[in-house]
């Protein structure tokens, strides 16, 4: 097979690093609002019909949106197998908590309104709250830990050993990142509810959204300061072989140097954090002005900026190790083989545009506010 040599290994690795970001951002800007809506459900909607309206705003789309997460799992497995292996086993109990919460979600959406019993429905409302809030929080906490380095080691056979504990994940910096993640997704979820509902629910969501966008700005800024002051960062000290074999142990790594070096070397990368701030500010301004679509789009751009910031700050690292820095996973030594990256790129180039096209079509078909009367009449809305 010669075809895959068309694109060199180092370029494929960078492409897959970008695609990893695209998929994670895809998850955050689509399923992210579903998570935010779940977390907001008990608060912006206070009676049964209001809650049904809110649930029906995401009712037809959450399943498709959630596939971004499934795809994320699959794509990390295929393109960055060591990242998949280390992060999922290292964060074992945290992953379990996320799964537990995510299991509640599909069932909550579908089953809640099947039985007309207040206890039944209120239990599912809180299940949906957990299903939204817990993954949003833990995913942020996980990112906070990744930025600090995760306590894992690799032996000569590249077997993974994990030194940390579940409670070790809950350190102040990681919790700050967790809160940022919640604020960001609540901002997004609120923007979605405002777009899809009317009346009192929309008003409440707008107020929550304004606060959440201000909190996003504040927490993102605080996160940056804390990253500067308290997080050492890592840098590769051995010569880098960008087309070398995927074996993390072939390099040497020093701690310190911070996660800001990339911005000094490549100032254009500052676009990422700038977009995070500008997006949240614009989201706030648009919410104030009552521009619904603008609010949603700017919150998406803010999320895009914030997640990109994490990626470019750490480049070329994707999962640094605090227990044995040289075991840290980098773009140049944790990918799949040249051939697999190439095949997966071909598949992605063909299918991702198709997915985006039909997703856009489905959103167009479903365009418009959720009709409260239709829910009362039990027509046109399934949940």
């Amino acid at each position, binding site marked *: 097979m010669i075809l895959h040599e068309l694109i060199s290994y180092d370029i494929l690795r960078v492409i897959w690093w970008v695609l990893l970001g695209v998929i994670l951002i895809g998850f955050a800007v689509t399923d992210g609002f579903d998570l935010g809506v779940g977390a907001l459900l008990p608060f912006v909607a206070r009676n049964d019909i209001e809650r049904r309206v809110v649930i029906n705003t995401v009712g037809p789309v959450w*399943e498709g949106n959630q596939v971004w997460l499934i795809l994320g*799992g*699959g794509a990390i497995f295929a393109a960055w197998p060591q990242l998949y*292996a280390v992060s999922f086993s290292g964060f074992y109990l945290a992953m379990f908590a996320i*799964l537990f919460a995510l*299991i509640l979600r*599909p069932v909550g*959406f579908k089953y809640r309104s099947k039985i007309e019993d207040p206890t039944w429905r209120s239990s599912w409302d809180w299940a949906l709250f957990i299903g939204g809030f817990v993954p949003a929080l833990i995913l942020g906490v996980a990112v906070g830990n990744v930025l600090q380095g995760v306590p894992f080691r690799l032996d000569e056979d590249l077997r993974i050993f994990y030194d940390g504990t579940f409670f070790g994940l809950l350190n102040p910096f990681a919790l700050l990142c967790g809160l940022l993640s919640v604020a960001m997704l609540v901002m997004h979820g609120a923007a979605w509810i405002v777009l899809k509902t009317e009346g009192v629910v929309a008003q409440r969501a707008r107020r929550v959204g304004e606060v959440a966008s201000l909190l996003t700005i504040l927490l993102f800024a605080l996160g940056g300061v804390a990253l500067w002051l308290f997080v050492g960062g890592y840098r590769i000290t051995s010569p880098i072989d960008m087309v070398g074999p995927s074996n993390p142990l072939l390099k040497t790594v020093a701690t310190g140097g911070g996660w800001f070096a990339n911005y000094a070397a490549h100032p254009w990368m500052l676009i990422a954090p700038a977009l995070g701030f500008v997006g949240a500010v614009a989201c706030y301004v648009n919410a104030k002005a009552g521009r619904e679509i603008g609010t949603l789009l700017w919150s998406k751009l803010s999320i895009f900026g914030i997640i990109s910031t994490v990626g470019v700050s750490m480049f070329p690292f994707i999962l640094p190790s605090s227990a044995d820095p040289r075991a840290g996973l980098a773009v140049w030594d944790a990918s799949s083989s040249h051939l697999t990256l190439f095949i997966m790129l071909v598949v992605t180039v063909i299918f991702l545009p198709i997915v985006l096209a039909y997703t856009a079509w489905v959103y167009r*078909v479903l365009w418009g506010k959720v009709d409260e009367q239709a829910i009362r009449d039990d027509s046109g*809305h399934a949940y």
Partner: protein
Amino acid sequence: MELDIVSLSRLQFALTALYHFLFVPLTLGLSVLLAIMETVYVMTGRLIWRQMTKFWGTLFGINFVLGVATGIVMEFQFGMNWSYYSHYVGDIFGAPLAIEGLMAFFLEATFVGLFFFGWDRLSKVGHLIATYAVAAGSNFSALWILIANGWMQNPVGSQFNPQTMRMEVADFYEVLFNSVAQAKFVHTVSAGYVAASFFVLGVSAWYMLKGRHIELAKRSMTVAASFGLAASLSVVVLGDESGYLSSEHQKMKLAAIEAMWETEPAPAAFTLFGIPDQAARETRYAIRIPWVMGLIGTRTLTEEIPGIKEQVDLAKLRIEQGIQAFDALQKIRAAGSTTAIPEDVRNAFEENGTRLGYALLLKRYVDDPRTATPEQIEKAAWDTVPMVAPLFWTFRIMVGLGMLFILLSATFFALSSLRKLDRYPWLLKVAVAFIILPWIAIECGWFVAEYGRQPWIIEGVLPTAAAVSDLGVTTVLLTIIGFVAIYTTLLIIELKLMLRAIRKGPEPDDEPEAQLAPAQLVAAE
């Protein structure tokens, strides 16, 4: 079973997979049945077919979400509990999983929303397209998952890379068109079609017995019986194909399923019943049918099927080759750069490299396989024999049920062709009682396929024991309890909602179609 991390991780995987597989077959089959029913509606314009699509669609939805919920766990569990596996084969195994998401699951999950919410927003044909997309998505999804699983059974198109200490893809075409994967795909989706057909048959039979929704029930039974007959035939034929392929690629699994301890002169006899005794390495009280095994396994009268003992001897040989490979691998890694590897070491690895996994079987007994004693090699060779009795029995249950499905669906197919579905109430009762049987067959099938591969997680490449994550016993015990608790709760809720929806019946209730159709037509115009 001891409470070590390997057993617990296997237990958790088995439980979560078996639960997941309670929901998936119905999704696979019902999605296709929905597509058939809605096609009839769009082609004939008869409203009863839309009513059928909506009614079975409601049951489909209740089941579908649990398939989705339990499916997320499957996607993440490899990394969580099987991190060395994920590292070791992610280069090959990850690709079909990612493609599944991109090509199949997106399609299914994006359009399933339109299936439920789109009746008033789409044209007839537009909605039909959404239903087709759901059916196509769920079936393609099965294809990619079984390509991944097929590779675990028959790891083609890949080779070990000493620099990265993992298996890497050498020929993706071989992985894709792996004959084992193709046979498994058709066998598994057919099993899903059987499950859905018997579900529709059983529920409809219940309505007929109760004298409710007769028109809907009769039509549903007609569709389900014909679809079920085709699917039952396909599941047995492709099951046979899988068996035939096992005789080529997984000889040990086949011998264990058949409790064939000794190699017999061709054509071998088939053991219909017997009591396999693992310790004595024999099968007691065997009732045997001459020739049949040889014919099924090799499709000839002359080829032998190697028995368990002969294959253990072969495993011993492979372990010794594996030790050579392991030794060469250590020297290759000590050499540092590729150019510094001595010629004889390179040759030794090229010759024996494919047996490296067999050396890893010794890791249970020694740290360095090169220091293994002949007794340890003997023990490791016997470790390649899975537990015979459970395989022997689950396989027979599965096959027996498969035959029963053909008989039953053929009966209902004949009755519906003769328009005599309501003639024999006892047969309707049988149909209700038998709803659960396809699920028993399916879970047995999963067990035979996966347990029969033990002690390997990747046949001949990586032992299951070497593949686990570095986790604590209590941690995994905790998550097992957590998963079982939530899955069982949700399963009970699901069954309750299913029964409720079935009892409630289709909307509008209890009206014969003759009066219903014109009334609704007027309302629609």
